[in-house]
């Protein structure tokens, strides 16, 4: 699941559960998730490191 798809799903679910105040926190978390996924130390199944950015990810702003 892309970060973009995850964020849409999470916000939708939070609103359905009557927790709209979660939205800004989930948006901030999505940035951290993007940072985590695009960190150069992540290995992938090809045996390579330095994954490409997740399509549609929010730009990481995690002090990087």
């Amino acid at each position: 699941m892309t970060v973009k798809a995850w964020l849409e799903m999470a916000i939708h679910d939070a609103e359905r559960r009557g927790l709209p105040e979660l939205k800004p926190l989930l948006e901030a978390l999505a940035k951290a998730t993007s940072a985590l996924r695009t960190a150069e130390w992540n290995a992938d199944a090809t045996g390579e490191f330095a994954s490409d950015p997740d399509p549609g990810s929010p730009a990481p702003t995690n002090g990087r």
Partner: protein
Amino acid sequence: MAAEPQTISELSRALKARQTTSESVVDGCLQRIGERNPTLNAFITVFEHDAREQARAADREIAAGRYRGPLHGVPISLKDLFDVRGAATTAASHVRQGHVADRDAAAVTALRHAGAVIVGKTNLHEFAFGTTNEDSAFGPARHPLDPSRSPGGSSGGSAAAVADGMCFASMGTDTGGSIRIPAAACGVVGLKPTCGELSTEGVVPLSPTLDHIGPICRSVADAAIIYGTLRGERPAESPSESPTLRLAIPRHYFLAALDPQVAAGFETACERLRESGATLTDVVIPHAGDIVAIYLHIVLPEAAAYHAKTLERRPEDYTKNVRIRLEMGRYILGEDYARALGGRELIKREIDAALEGVDGLFLPALAIPAPKIGVPTVRIGGAEEPVRNVMLRSTQAFNISGHPAIALPCGTTSEGLPIGAQIVGAFGDTAGLLRVASRVEAALAAPVAATEIYRGPGRSR
């Protein structure tokens, strides 16, 4: 007339020599709690009757020559996450209403065995999930020097109680900095040992793989006494201690966003260490910029797992902010948790590498002075940042990595608010960290952290 004992080291000497009694010291602490707790809200529960009984029993044993060691007869408090048999462990939450612990936490058993007198249980950020202590079912704990400010958190009641003379030490917990942050904010010493060294059995968890327990007290020697007691051993003397203290400063990331007064206070401390003969070099932890993302993707789902059932059944029993933060963790994907665990190993290796050839890392413990209660953001490094993020920035890395770390006072702001430094030691060598910290404490000439605040039982400030 001899000065009132300020530290456990001083008090234990006086108790052993029968120059004072545990009963009189405990009485002084209970009096102080009675006077100051209505303002500071540091204690949730006070064991007045039991504490007096324990103190009298300690005095009888000492008089009979059955001295148990340096904690015998010493008044200590517990963050209200530690189980005490027959008492509620509230976790500062309505969720725990009606709870009564059926046994003591492992650490409490060890403290009782050492003869410590448990005076009560201290306030905290609800379920330890915050850095300010504002979100508590019992209302916020407040800073001893300025009650309009937070004492830090989540072990804020513990730090306030120690700094204000309500007890000589307090046991806290630390998942992202919750011992070191309030210790720095209140001008006392806070030790987070190496991950896994001290049992968390009988302690309400926040994030089981990041949780640590440790003491908040008034000197490094006192931290060593409590750590040694809980480990069941005396810290060994190191035969290979370097004659010159060698410290490395991870400026990149860790010193990049500091309050100007904290930055100045820390640099003054560095200068004092150099004058004392220490060598200070700079070091880089290459992926420090990933620490926040790694931390969030571990702490949030682990906390959510523990709280999932009560979030469904009794969501209204949580404070609003803590509930929302816990709910966030329920959305994190398993693959991202797994990535964070991989990042955790990387950060540990990089901190191991940064410690090669030095006695410890030296950095601020808290990027800002104690914040005003109710202020959600702070301007730092040219940007407006959430207070919580800023307060965790200096400490959470060492919960991820598990390295032992200690906060100790290193100066004050122009308003007299404490500034804290932090030393990080080699993984598994908490005793070595304590020896280094003792040398740093001596060089900074701040052996009794609380003296600016606390002048002894019954004395006015």
